[in-house]
């Protein structure tokens, strides 16, 4: 018999409930009002009063309304059929909801996350007599491009000795596919689905490894200069209009990972629509299937209830961890973590907790840290590795990075891709600031090569600032050439044309080859008579290079343009920067 209770107080989306028995922290309950069941979660317990956040609008809830407790924490359903789905923050499938409820999100309607009708081609991999631990795989089903592992529920406390396992064939996810005994004589029946509480990390693995292998995004600025490792974390802070969401969208398309989970958390609904409509049409070059088949969208946009916004990032990361357990590489893109932090702030305010900076709760930092710590690359018990990479955008108030959410995030992430208003105003895409951003991961290039290019860029920026004061005529030709080199690097390598089918996504091989060419140009001592000639020459080179960037890799055009660029540079080269000697040697 589960605990029940009655509502004794309502303040916004928080209700106070007097309970008649035991309650669990973060337990799910339902407030019964006007014939509807409103899903809620316990967030504080004091004596016999539980305070719960309601995942719906609380209009119409009254004192004395009864509350049912489920005895379970807020959980998601795991099993085949998650890929390609569009869920709200509580794993309600939105398209199915639309079929039932029409244009609007009617409250109190909760649907099954996984389709009960769908049948899956099951192949057993365990045999009668096998002893299985939680998380062990006992069968597989094909799901889109992947082999989906059917595992013993993670929360199962005991080992299971198989007494019966279903043969090869097609089954629904509610059909029993395995029966077994536990050491203490219990009987177990398993289906292809189970639940896991979203706020608890899944930790069924042998070892957490150090993220070293680059997670290729095909954005040059990221892969070459500020790389992210598989199992790593990164953040993208930026003022409004700097292109955070665009960068996330492009990454979600081109990233070289198995599964992409997009958590649209408290942002515009319109932005999700583009992904929703376009992904089914786009092809994933790796598998040749529609991009939607490797994608899960968690969509809890800004006007949807704030408590489920708080839950949505946890829902997303739990789904990510589930696919990681199958030995897959998962990328979670959370847009925007600031809205999630604000959701925590709203609840904290309702709970009348003592506020920290800018009224964010005192546990803001630890919550952000705990969330990003759910990323990682792990060696599973099966010996395979799987990873969850987390990339979160941050929307700092006023575009000022000195605010609590940005600062708390910077402390825990491995890479920082700061977007700048100046660069986005100048229509430079991506607007990642090339000198402020950083990464602690190693990427596809040797670090000292990247440092050399970076050095030229910083110097170029300094000279540019100086020229604004003393004018072009007060600048030496030598400095002016460094300035031009920096501008050139920015224009042809940092910036990428996201509308150009070729330039929008650049493979690591191509990046390595093009970057070598760039290094040669940066290190070259050029024989250019005066600034006018230098400007014209670099302008020509830039134009050629942009065409080169737009040419298909290894096509005739590409080869021709590369040859022309090399000849053009060679004809003016009279020596090379001694500081780059070792780099040029390595490139040979």
């Amino acid at each position, binding site marked *: 018999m589960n605990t029940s209770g009655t509502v*004794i*107080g*309502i*303040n916004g989306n928080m209700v*106070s409930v007097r309970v008649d028995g035991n309650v669990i922290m973060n337990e799910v309950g339902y407030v019964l*009002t006007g014939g509807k069941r409103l899903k809620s979660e316990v967030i504080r317990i004091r004596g016999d009063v539980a305070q719960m956040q309601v995942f719906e*609008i*609380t*209009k*119409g*809830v*009254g*004192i*004395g309304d009864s509350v049912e407790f489920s005895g379970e924490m807020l959980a998601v359903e795991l099993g085949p059929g998650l890929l390609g789905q*569009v869920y709200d923050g509580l794993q309600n499938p*939105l*398209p199915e*909801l*639309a079929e039932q*409820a*029409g*244009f*609007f*999100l*009617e*409250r109190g309607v909760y649907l099954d996350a996984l389709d009960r009708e769908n049948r899956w081609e099951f192949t057993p991999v365990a045999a009668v007599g096998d002893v299985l631990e939680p998380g062990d795989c006992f069968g597989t089903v094909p799901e889109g491009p992947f082999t989906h592992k059917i595992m013993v529920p993670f929360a199962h406390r005991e080992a299971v000795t198989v007494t019966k396992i279903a043969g090869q064939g097609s089954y629904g996810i509610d059909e029993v596919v395995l029966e077994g005994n536990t050491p203490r004589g219990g009987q177990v029946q398993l289906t292809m689905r189970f639940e896991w509480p979203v706020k608890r990390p899944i930790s069924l693995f042998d070892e957490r490894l150090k993220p070293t292998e680059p997670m290729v995004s095909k954005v040059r600025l990221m892969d070459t200069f500020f790389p992210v490792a598989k199992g790593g974390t990164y953040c993208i802070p930026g*003022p*409004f*209009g700097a292109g955070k969401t665009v960068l996330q969208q492009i990454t979600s398309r081109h990233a070289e990972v198995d599964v992409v989970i997009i958590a649209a958390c*408290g942002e*515009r*609904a*319109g932005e*999700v*629509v*583009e992904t*929703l*409509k376009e992904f089914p049409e786009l092809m994933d070059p790796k598998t040749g299937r529609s991009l939607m088949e490797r994608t899960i969208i968690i*969509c809890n*946009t*800004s*006007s*949807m209830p*704030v408590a489920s916004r708080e839950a949505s990032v946890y829902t997303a990361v739990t789904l990510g961890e589930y696919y990681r357990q199958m030995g897959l590489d998962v990328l979670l893109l959370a847009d925007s973590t600031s*809205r999630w932090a*604000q*959701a925590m*702030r*709203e609840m*904290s*305010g309702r709970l*009348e907790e003592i*506020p920290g900076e*800018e*009224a964010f709760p005192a546990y803001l930092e630890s919550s952000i840290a705990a969330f990003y710590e759910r990323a990682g690359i792990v060696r599973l018990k099966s010996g395979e590795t799987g990873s969850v990479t987390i990339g979160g955008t941050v*929307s700092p*108030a*006023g*575009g*000022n990075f000195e605010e609590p959410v940005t600062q708390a995030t910077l402390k825990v992430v491995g890479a920082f891709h700061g977007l700048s208003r100046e660069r986005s105003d100048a229509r430079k895409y991506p607007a990642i600031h090339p000198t402020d951003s950083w990464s602690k991961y190693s990427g596809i290039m040797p670090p000292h090569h990247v440092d050399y290019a970076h050095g030229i860029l910083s110097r170029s920026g300094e000279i540019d600032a100086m020229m604004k004061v003393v004018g072009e005529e007060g600048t030496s030709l030598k400095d002016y050439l460094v300035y031009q080199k920096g501008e050139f690097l920015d224009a042809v390598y940092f910036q990428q044309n996201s509308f150009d089918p070729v330039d929008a996504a650049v493979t690591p091989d191509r990046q390595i080859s093009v970057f070598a060419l760039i290094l040669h140009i940066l290190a070259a001592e050029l024989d250019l008579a005066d600034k006018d000639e230098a400007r014209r020459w670099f302008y020509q080179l830039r134009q050629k290079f942009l065409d080169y960037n737009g040419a298909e890799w290894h096509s005739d055009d590409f080869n021709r343009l590369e040859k022309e660029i090399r000849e053009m540079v060679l004809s003016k080269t009279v020596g090379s920067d001694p500081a780059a000697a070792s780099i040029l040697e390595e490139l040979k």
Partner: protein
Amino acid sequence: MNKVYSKIESIAGNVITVKADGVRYGDLAQISASFGTSLAEVIKLDEDIVSLQVFAGARGVSTGDEVRFLGKSMQVAFSEDLMGRVFNGSGEPRDKGPALKDNMIPIGGPSFNPARRIIPRNMVRTGIPMIDLFNTLVESQKLPIFSISGEPYNELLARIALQAEVDLIILGGMGLKHDDYLYFRDTLEEGGALGRSILFIHTAADPVVEGLMVPDISLAVAEKFALEGKKVLVLLTDMTNFADAMKEIAITQEQVPSNRGYPGDLYSQLASRYEKAVDIEGAGSITVLAVTTMPGDDVTHPVPDNTGYITEGQYYLRGGRIEPFGSLSRLKQQVNDRTREDHRPLMDGMIKIYSAYKDALEKQSMGFQMTDWDLKLLKYGALFEQEMMDLSVNVPLEKALDNGWKILASCFEKEETGLRSSLIEKFWPIEV
């Protein structure tokens, strides 16, 4: 059910508390005070203590006044009879017309299912070149007009109300000066647009709480009309007053403020209104234009800052004109490739040259020698400001594009414009 309570336990700010049973969150109550009756809304329930926000303000409310719960939440009448009428923030008539009581609909309804949204596809024509040509407004778009006090933002809104090609205009005024209200009413009447307009007006003289209802009422009515297939344009002015009203209430309720006194849920509150903008497949649409005044011309102030994160671009109104730099319609790409082939290139080209004009202007003001090119730019800039940026210009998009070519032709040689030769061949005016 409609039990009368006659003991008010506490009065603080505009919030009163009474002891009552059977009350639901969000319910309305009627308070009979010495100054008349006022509606109040339940904003908090704690056992039998009910906190009510009094729309007319608690000033003059006595602890002995009667409170009668109505057993329903805030509603507004919905019918064709709303057209041409003016109401206050509680939905009561502000004009001399009859009160509407039929077909009441709830306000602040649930949010639109993102899975049912469609990619925006239709332009809203306003006859204002700075909008139509340079930052096209798109059906279902939500755009703020960032401005400072003293700028003619209400004149701009009135102009858009008169000229926009939509079925229905809903104007929501919050903290409006009474003169501005009269200005809107008279302008719409004289322009013959009052018949397709509905006005929900809260003036600065009205109780603060009433202003909080205006966006919800306006958008609830808009939503109903949109579902019936109408193209609705909702004009809100001024959202900063709305945010300030929220701030006032939050502070009197002793909520912890987050940034410059604004409540922590400012973003969610604004978003739940703006996100009502939608294009409904098989029915109508809601487009929202909202004036947001920036205190101290500071775009990082919490209200414009949070707004910028929610809306799909912004118009900056400065010096009586829509600023070409900084103003941005994020959805314009969805439509401006289907208007006329020269739309996009002309939009980019003219702005580029206008930016060069600004440089030339600076050069001139610093007393440098002006080249022929500079003089051409100065001529261009003056024409551009006069023919394109002046808010009184009212021309269809196609005419505005033609005008653009004329301006270019009267200032420059063909190759100086940086536009594609094929376009120049087709659109360059023969006679200037």
